[in-house]
């Protein structure tokens, strides 16, 4: 089966085209999009003279594999699931759930470094977003009351030292601080 790598931003467009063009149907199992040459009005691109068009046989489907470089949170889920302490793991899951969509929006128009999760020997863990002159960290302790976020930046870009609890934190603001 031929495979066509596609940037994630085109997936929606492909799905839309597949949904609205006559003779096409879509399957979202592994984002596989199959052209059905037997459907009424179907016309494969450049297939007018092909044997498939002549015989009405189905054109081989192609599989869409989105490239994954655009999501800075991509590795986080697997890393978090490996965290040993259940309380720490759940806190990290919760933050990732809220953080991911905000980071994806920020990453649409800008290359951003990947976020990474670390497990420490005392059972705590952290999600760190490291820029050359800024770092945003979410720190998870076995006792959630000790958990929180902090943001630091070099003097050249403001010299900020800020921190707070996980509850009530303004994630959008934190992401803007880090990514702007």
């Amino acid at each position, binding site marked *: 089966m031929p495979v066509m790598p596609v940037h994630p931003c085109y997936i929606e467009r492909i799905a839309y085209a597949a949904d609205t063009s006559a003779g096409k149907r879509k399957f979202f199992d592994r984002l596989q999009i199959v052209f059905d040459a037997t459907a009424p009005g179907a016309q494969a691109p450049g297939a007018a003279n092909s044997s498939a068009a002549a015989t009405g046989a189905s054109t081989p489907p192609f599989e869409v594999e989105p490239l994954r470089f655009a999501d800075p949170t991509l*590795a986080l889920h*697997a*890393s*978090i699931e*490996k*965290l040993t302490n259940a309380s720490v793991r759940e806190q990290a899951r919760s933050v990732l759930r809220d953080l991911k969509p905000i980071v994806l929006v920020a990453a649409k128009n800008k290359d951003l470094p990947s976020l*990474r*999760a*670390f*497990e*420490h*020997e*005392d059972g705590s*863990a*952290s999600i*760190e977003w*490291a820029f050359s*002159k*800024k*770092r945003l*960290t979410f*720190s998870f*302790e076995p006792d959630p009351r*000790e*958990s*929180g976020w*902090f943001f*630091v*930046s*070099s*003097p050249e870009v403001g*010299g900020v*030292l*800020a*921190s707070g609890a996980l509850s009530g934190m303004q994630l959008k603001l934190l992401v803007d601080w880090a990514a702007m």
Partner: protein
Amino acid sequence: MGRNVGGAAPGLPPTCLRGLRKKSWAENGIVVFEAFMPDDNTAASRSDGGAETSVNWEDDDTVLPDTQRHSNAAHGVARVQLSEIRRINNAPNTRDALLAERTAGDPHHGNIVYRRDLAKLHRKMIATALALDCTFIAPPPGMNQSDGGGIGSGRPGGTGRSGSTPAA
């Protein structure tokens, strides 16, 4: 415990050196906060209850190569500006959080001391600020890069805090 001189004290050079004894403390030249986390075991022997991060004060050109030769610097050395310690001590939510001191009886060795009552989150934030602003100096060619040893002092041994591992 040495002579406490505070973050803005006279008698200290503009920079100090922190040995990186664990590979995980610096990845691709980026130093992580764990390299600057203090050793809680040192608090028991201090009257102020503070916790120490061991450093060598860069008094002259011999201190860097001396530090690099030590096994505690197997994965490089981080150079920290005294001005960064001052800056942290002047920030509203970390005011006077750190002491910079020399150790009595050791010409170059000293500590960055974290105040006793700091919240864990603030200790990590301060360690991150030090890590962010430091300069990474790679180990010289041929340097042994195996894990082990203590903190990057000019002295043997040390009491380094354990590092972290990427969860991935």
